[in-house]
């Protein structure tokens, strides 16, 4: 089937990604090389389009096509990304390694939050609280009581889950905006507790001397080995999340997001499913928090502000709600982009904001999101 594509499709499929690439590349590469990068991108997309059409697949929409999920091309892409991620720590210098580790942390967070925002359509504006609870649990257990990393890791995830249950029981009866406000309040309460409970959290000064994770034969993990540890957790998390999506439980979430009344009528206990999702989401946040604390070797309330919650939410929305690969891409973009724009100190945030607004105008469903 060859039909003449509309101007809008032409624009969103070919021109926009190229211009976008140029805009990102411009601050770091200068005009001529940015143009080259854009042209390269354009050529790539055209080739991609031609190949997918030849194979009888649906025409890609926008940057990439979510419909290709589970197709062979996607499997190849996953393998490629995995290989690149495994190779990356070996090739990166210490600054880039730091950025990369940061990407991994935010991937864990964005994927965890996506369980709520993407899969269930519940807005959580205080997600960073669970990250903080995980981090503080580890810091207190390890720095004060000398409890080992692996036990504290489980404890951090569990603590976040327990706290999420406390917040979930009253708030999950609320809908939409009200839930968002309640979670926002919860996030702030947690941060203020960290800030003021001096005897436990050492207040605004934070907890220092938080130990690194320890593994037999390797010893304390730092630098590259630490990055690999986080990478393992990301892979594990993605695996679990993909499996959840494919099973009964994942379909409950889809059903609830699509139509709560109908879900109840086919026997789904919507309240219970939402609670479990809330806890699972918090668990991932808590685990990420433990890893974060063990990387920084220091925790303070400053790391868990409201703006961090918004940042993680932006990753989920930018990448494509409900789409695992998309959310990971969103995390990658939002961590790496500001780093790339560092050269443009004054305009950095301006360019960043412009790119986000452009994205939302032309692809409101996110980079890899499905068209609603």
């Amino acid at each position: 089937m060859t039909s003449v594509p509309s101007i809008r499709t032409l624009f969103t499929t070919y021109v926009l990604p190229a211009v976008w690439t140029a805009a990102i590349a411009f601050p770091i590469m200068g005009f001529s090389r940015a143009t080259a990068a854009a042209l390269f991108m354009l050529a790539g997309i055209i080739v991609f389009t031609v190949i997918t059409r030849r194979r009888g697949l649906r025409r890609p929409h926008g940057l990439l096509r979510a419909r290709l999920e589970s197709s062979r091309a996607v499997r190849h892409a996953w393998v490629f990304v995995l290989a690149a991620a495994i190779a990356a720590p070996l090739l990166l210098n210490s600054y880039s390694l730091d950025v990369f580790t940061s990407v991994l942390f935010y991937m864990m967070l964005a994927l965890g939050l996506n369980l709520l925002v993407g899969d269930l359509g519940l807005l959580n504006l205080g997600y960073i609280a669970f990250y903080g609870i995980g981090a503080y649990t580890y810091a207190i257990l390890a720095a004060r009581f000398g409890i080992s990393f692996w036990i504290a890791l489980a404890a951090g995830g569990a603590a976040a889950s327990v706290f999420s249950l406390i917040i979930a029981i009253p708030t999950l009866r609320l809908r939409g905006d009200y839930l968002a406000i309640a979670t926002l309040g919860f996030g702030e309460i947690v941060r203020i507790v960290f800030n003021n409970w001096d005897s436990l959290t050492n207040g605004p000064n934070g907890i220092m001397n938080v130990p690194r994770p320890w593994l037999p034969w390797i010893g304390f993990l730092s630098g590259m080995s630490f990055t690999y540890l986080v990478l393992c957790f990301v892979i594990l998390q993605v695996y679990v999340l993909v499996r959840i999506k494919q099973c009964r439980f994942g379909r409950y979430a889809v059903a609830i997001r699509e139509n709560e009344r109908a879900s109840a009528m086919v026997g789904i206990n919507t309240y219970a499913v939402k609670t479990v999702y809330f806890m699972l989401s918090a668990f991932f946040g808590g685990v990420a928090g433990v890893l974060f604390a063990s990387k920084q070797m220091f925790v303070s309330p400053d790391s868990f502000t409201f703006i961090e919650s918004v940042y993680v939410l932006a990753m989920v929305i930018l990448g494509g709600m409900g789409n695992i690969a998309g959310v990971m891409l969103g995390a990658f973009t939002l961590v790496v982009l500001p780093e790339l724009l560092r050269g443009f100190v004054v305009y950095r945030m301006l360019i960043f904001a412009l790119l986000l607004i452009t994205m939302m105008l032309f692809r409101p469903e996110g980079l890899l999101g499905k068209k609603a």
Partner: protein
Amino acid sequence: MDDGTILSITDISIMFGGLKALDRVTIGIRKGEVLCIIGPNGAGKTTLFNCITGFLRPTSGSIVYRGAVELTGRKPHEIAAHGIYRSFQNLALFTNVSVEDNVMIGGLRRKEFSYSITDMLIHTPVFRAREAALRQEAADLLAFVGLAGKKDRKAGELSYGERKLLELARGLITRPQLLLLDEPAAGLNPTEKTELVRAIGRIREQSINVILIEHDMRFVSDIANWIVVLDYGKKLAEGLPDDIKKNKAVIEAYLGTR
């Protein structure tokens, strides 16, 4: 205590502010019966369905299922677990999900299709077999309602009539013993109506009890063997279709008095 009564609704009343939406309504449905509830707009028909399925809690009265289970005060999903399914007047489908998945979601709660967390994490043969069985049953039911060819379409892309049939198929996969259909024929074209009458007839043969709300008297006479007429929240009359058609009070309620 099984005297052949599937559902006995006794003296159900519900108030919305000062309005009595249902006023001491008593209805019994016997095994194998297709009961039809008719009445002018605002008579309380859908409210009655909402009471039976737990979306509303009646102010007084009781609804007893199979002579043993009190349904008032229970949550919709608990009521569904007893084998009661309802369709909604204005449709409640999973719009952005494929037709096949819509039906499959309906069957998720059935024991035959369940599996453990381990099964789900490593996709054991048990997992694959159960998923395949569920998919197969969904395919069979889609064929039953005549939507086999559209299983990969999104539910939102179907025509209005097709969506109603899809909602029916999703209900059947839950293996209901009591099916509540809220205006199933509204908005269907004549061909689709014939299809629906045929489907309901076959549902009845599987000894599934059906209660439906309907306006189209011809459609009602074709399938119902008992009719209850509601008006202003009260039961106005009940009886066989032919008697109801001749009932003066019913005609007045619909057409008004001279």
